[in-house]
């Protein structure tokens, strides 16, 4: 296993920078150079790191510094340089040029990028530097969300990758998912496909309940704690746009058209309504004079905010009750047999999610356990393979896909019935991700 005693964090004052630094200083016991634009910001990052992992013991080994004054010296003595500055080539590339000049041979350099090309970013380095350059895509907040997508590119050395993977897993306690250098990697590619296509359906069904209706149809009984559109509102519509635009521009798969940003998302972004972080987006919460909070939802047709509706959809109620009683297969039977357009939508998206997840094996990841891990640990969504089991196995799942006119991935066609399809069960109990 690789020994990492000294680490430099670039972007130490951001949520991801401070959170990741906390994990590295605590679990890894490393000395951490916390670099930001100025020392004051770096000091704030140290306090945020301490608060994130709740241990004062790391404070003494975190050293504040600035890019201007301290970058070269910190990088020169580091075993790992973890760059978490803004998500653009324009910001990352000049910093990489500086790191490349200062790093010692053998030092790992990685970026937290959720979508940029790791191969392109690696080009700032000499051969040794390229060999040691990775994407280490942590999720927010890093202490709680243990997924790390370890993104490799063609210049990496398998031995270094293995040693880094072991360090991230055994020392830092990350659930490591190995992905290839493809747009948005595994988690976001799958997650944002579903979120964006659900957003299109919300527009199509704007008269019937729009955003709120689609989140209801895709609620906890379909294996997630938060509806897909609530998730988009939570991460921010600007971030959502950046991710789906990147995938749309740089991929050409069967789901290509579903990555087009819906017009009403752009309208909201243009109006500065970016989601929860800006006080409103797809939904907003208003605090009344008496202290009571009321939730509203954006009406795609009128552009106004309406009171958040309640729905009474019998099959969802029935499925939810089954989940509440831990009868997961029973809940999926309800979904399979239900009639009405809402049930058709539910079946369509369950099929789409499984199909798209499994179709990326071979291109984005080498095995389905990697996409399963990405969705389970990174999004808290029931992994696709586990869904296959809850639906009654590959044959039943294929039937569902065919009825919804969703392509059947080869992996599923080749799978044997009567054998568990989900293989991460000992690490992640998929049942815990259904919400009743």
């Amino acid at each position, binding site marked *: 296993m690789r020994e990492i005693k000294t680490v430099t964090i670039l972007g130490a004052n951001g949520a991801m920078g401070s959170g990741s630094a906390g*994990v590295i200083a*605590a*679990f890894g*016991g490393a000395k951490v150079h916390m670099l930001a634009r100025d020392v004051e910001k770096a000091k704030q990052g140290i306090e945020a790191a*301490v608060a994130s*992992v*709740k*241990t*004062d*013991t790391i404070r003494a080994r975190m050293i504040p510094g600035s890019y201007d004054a301290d970058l070269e010296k910190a990088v020169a003595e580091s075993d790992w340089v973890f760059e978490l500055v803004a998500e653009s080539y324009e910001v990352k590339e000049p910093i990489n040029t500086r790191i490349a000049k200062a790093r010692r041979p053998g030092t790992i350099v990685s970026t937290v990028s959720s979508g940029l090309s790791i191969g392109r970013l690696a080009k700032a380095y000499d051969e040794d530097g390229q060999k040691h350059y990775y994407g280490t895509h942590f999720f927010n907040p890093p*202490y709680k969300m*243990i997924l790390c997508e370890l993104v490799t590119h063609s210049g990496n050395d398998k031995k270094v990758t293995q040693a880094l993977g072991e360090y991230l897993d055994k020392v830092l*306690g990350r659930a490591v998912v190995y992905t290839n250098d493809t747009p948005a990697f595994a988690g976001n590619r799958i997650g944002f496909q579903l979120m964006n296509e659900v957003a299109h359906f919300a527009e199509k069904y704007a008269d019937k309940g729009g955003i709120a209706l689609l989140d209801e149809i895709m609620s*906890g009984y379909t294996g997630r*704690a938060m509806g897909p559109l609530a998730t988009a509102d939570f991460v921010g519509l600007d971030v959502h746009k950046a991710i789906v635009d990147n995938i749309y521009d740089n991929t050409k798969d069967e789901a290509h058209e579903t990555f087009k940003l819906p017009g009403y998302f752009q309208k909201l972004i243009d109006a500065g309504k970016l989601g929860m972080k800006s006080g409103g987006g797809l939904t907003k919460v208003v605090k009344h004079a008496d202290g009571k909070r009321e939730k509203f939802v954006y009406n795609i047709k009128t552009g106004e905010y309406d009171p958040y509706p309640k729905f009474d959809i019998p099959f969802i109620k029935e499925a*939810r009750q089954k*989940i*509440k*009683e*831990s*009868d997961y297969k029973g809940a999926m039977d309800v979904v399979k047999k239900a009639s009405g357009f809402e049930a058709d939508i539910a079946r369509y998206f369950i099929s789409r999610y499984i199909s798209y997840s499994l179709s990326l094996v071979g291109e984005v990841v080498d095995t389905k356990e990697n996409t399963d891990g990405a969705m389970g640990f990174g999004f808290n969504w029931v992994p696709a393979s586990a869904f296959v089991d809850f639906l009654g196995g590959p044959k039943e799942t294929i039937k569902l896909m065919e009825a919804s006119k969703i392509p059947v991935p080869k992996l599923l066609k080749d799978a044997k019935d009567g054998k568990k399809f989900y293989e991460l069960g*000992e*690490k992640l*109990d998929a*049942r*815990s991700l*259904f*919400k*009743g």
Partner: protein
Amino acid sequence: MSEKVFVLGGEQTDFQRNWTKEGKTFMSMMREVLDDALEKVGISYDEIKRLNKENRVAVFVGNFDAEQYANQGHLGAFLTEVNPALFGVPGARYEAACASGSVALDAAITHIRAEDYDLAIVLGVEVMKTVSSSVGGDFLGTAAYYDKEAKGVQFPFPKLFGKLADVILERYELKEERFMDALAEISRINYANAKRNPKAQTRTWFMNKEHAMARGGDNNMAVGGRLCITDCSQVTDGAAVTILASKDYTKAYAKKTGRKFDDIPRIKGWGHRVAPITFEAKKLESVGDKYILPWTRQTVKDAYKRADLDVKNIDVFETHDCFTSSEYAAISAFGISEPGKEHIAIEDGTIDFGGKKPINPSGGLIGVGHPVGASGVRMMLDLYKQVTNTAGDYQVKGAKNGLMLNIGGSATTNFVFILGK
């Protein structure tokens, strides 16, 4: 005794789960854990139906306080909601505070020893994340003498076990620094062990010796005298099942499942003693005794005697580390060290995962989590895993005999079981 009751295996829930957040209840927890346990052991609901026709199967539910946490009593009857195959199967709930799982095990063992049943399903269950920690702390106070020791006291149990730490320090005239260091090491070991256990509550939590030593402040608050957060186990939601069987049934089961009869572990010994309920009475009674918890020691001795074994024969221990001070006192109660010299066994690595007498390879209550009524059953399940060489990453090499100590209240109800081949 040692040829009468066999353990066929079982399963536990992931103690990291919060069932209320998942929109699920104690009942869904019972369903999942029982389905999983039966699948793992290889016993079907049809087999239970068959046994029930002849009145040869029973269920024993360990639970402390479902009335307060879940507004539900009569849990012994609740397995009929889990599966209709359990209609008519004798079932009852057993309660002895944090030793509820053990009293359920004790009842099951007794019935099988008496040849009343062939198969006993023991299910420990507790849902605790339904209320805030301060409300839950008050509920837990009913495991002490509530009026005298818990009424109006915030978090009474850390305070009672903080008093145990005080008495240990005074009686044995230990250096405070060395003693507190030993308690921190207990904490470190349990958290480190839990990292290898995929069902442990704390498997992703940060903890090391440095943090355990840094007592005080917002990040490691004092909660009971000398004891801080890192000295405490934390409550959680969880359930565990172990399935016990008679000798004849075990023989037939071994044949049917292709296992070797000799590889299936048996209950070799047990002990059950109740100490005075208040901590003050315990303290007064033990003045002049070598052991601060003499009834805990006696329970261990009873189990050794019944098993015709001694500490030298035990390869692995699961103990009730509700607090670091309770594990500390257990070390001499097991006979691993002389009373007053427990710190040496901690310092020299004897109780560590790779040590001569490893304690809590699972992570114990501090690492695995403490769903009160399930803990005793979970300990038995962990002993089963250890002695059958199926504990995966937390397997103690070559373990043949294991001993568990499960206590209710401030070491009031003491239960010990020895499992081995």
